[in-house]
């Protein structure tokens, strides 16, 4: 759902820490029709110019708190990501991205909250790897964006 708008077009920026570029970040929205409890948020398939950045190098910033890993987020049972809020996805990459346009292949993984899907129990124990199509909510395809790095 809302496939073309999951990433805000002008949000791709490098991340600088202590004077060094340590990665990049982008603004993302929920690919569903309602908000979500954060613990159900299972990470992203993100491939930039042919390179895949796995969940382990991703962090997510929401609700005014510092960026957290998806290992941390999976226990946020009581925290809600509001439907209307933009979150920031951080990806570690030494040196960041070059200026210019990048091809980003993207899929968000948010597990269904319903509780009656046949996969529910399995996915609590073994969450699917983002990008496989499984657990991708209402946008089950990988969406490709051309986005320019603005900073």
């Amino acid at each position: 759902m809302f496939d073309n708008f999951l990433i805000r077009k002008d949000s791709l920026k490098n991340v600088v820490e202590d004077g060094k570029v340590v990665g990049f970040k982008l603004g993302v929205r929920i690919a569903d029709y309602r908000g979500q409890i954060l613990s159900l948020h299972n990470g992203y398939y993100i491939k930039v110019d042919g390179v895949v950045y796995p969940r382990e190098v991703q962090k997510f910033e929401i609700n005014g708190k510092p960026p957290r890993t998806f290992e941390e987020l999976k226990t946020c049972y009581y925290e809600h990501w509001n439907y209307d809020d933009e979150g920031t996805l951080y990806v570690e990459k030494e040196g960041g991205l070059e200026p210019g346009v990048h091809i980003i292949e993207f899929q968000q993984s948010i597990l269904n909250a319903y509780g009656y899907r046949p996969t529910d129990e399995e996915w609590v124990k073994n969450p699917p790897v983002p990008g496989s199509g499984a657990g991708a909510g209402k946008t089950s395809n990988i969406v490709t964006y051309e986005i320019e790095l603005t900073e």
Partner: protein
Amino acid sequence: MKTNNPIKLGVSLYSYQEVFWRGDLDLEGVLTAAAGAGAEGVEIFGEAMIPSFPHITDEFLYKWFYLLDNLDLEPVCYEHFADRRYWKDTSRYLSDDDVFDLTVHYLESAKKLGCKFIRLSHDGHNGKFIMNDAHSHTVVNAQIFERLLPIAAELGVKMALEVHGPGLLEDGGNDDFLEALDRTGIYEGGGLMLDFSGCFRDCSPMQVDAMVSRGGNPEIIDYIRRMSRKAYTFDGNNEVDWDEVEAKVKEMGGGSVELDFLNGPKGRSFGGVRNRLITPPEVVKEYASQLIYIHGKAHWINEDCTCDEMDYPRYLQALKDGGYRGYISTEYEGQRSVPHTINEVELVRRQHILMRQCLGY
């Protein structure tokens, strides 16, 4: 616009999910769109449109009632969910008591919002098709429903038991809920709700596009659609020999896309034009007087405000003849199959024109 009509027309704001998500319309914008379509009332989807969800702030309520008053709309229904995996705590699913507490909170929220109904997420949602009947995977079951009935009645908020396709009103999937109502006699606490998905006779143009993009032949798909509309338009002339249709589809060169459309994907217990599950208007008429609420689910209404998907004239006549008194709230959902190409505001408006024509308003 308030009327004294026995059947009132409303809009679930869920219908405007894409324009709202994109920020093109805010709460005031979607309420104005509903009023502009001619609605008398609205249903609100809390987890999408109430920023402090699951809590409702006084500030939100001031705004809500101010906007409704100014647009001459009334609050009708609040959308409920009972996600057992709400927390995804690996050590447990929500217990029945948790789901009970959560639902009481929804009922109290509905009262705050001035709504007379919650659309209850319950185990009879898909009628006899329960997706997973392990107890820990259910939503609101009949036992929890029964415990909630006195609370709902005291708050003046009814729990609407939505029956959604592939489930049908008459398939027995809600019997244990109806027994709970009969046993307690607390009919003020809840009742059956129809979703138009149980009345569909045809697919939408978006589904046709999807089949064509998978290699389907438009001419064969059109033939199957015509047969579908013939079979499920209950005008006394709806006999269709599906084996003949299948033979003709093959003769026309139909392959897996067309045959799956006709017969349903292999390995699934429902689906396919020939096995379409539909509640005929006569049956809707029988149930009409006991329905408490209706979702007017729709995917496409033609530009001239006619509809292939559902036979509005016959179903709305059935509701009238059967004595339905209450709301039909549009639940427009066509935007989900082809994002960014559909004007939700216009599609809701078309459906309201069509329904008003059928009802003689």
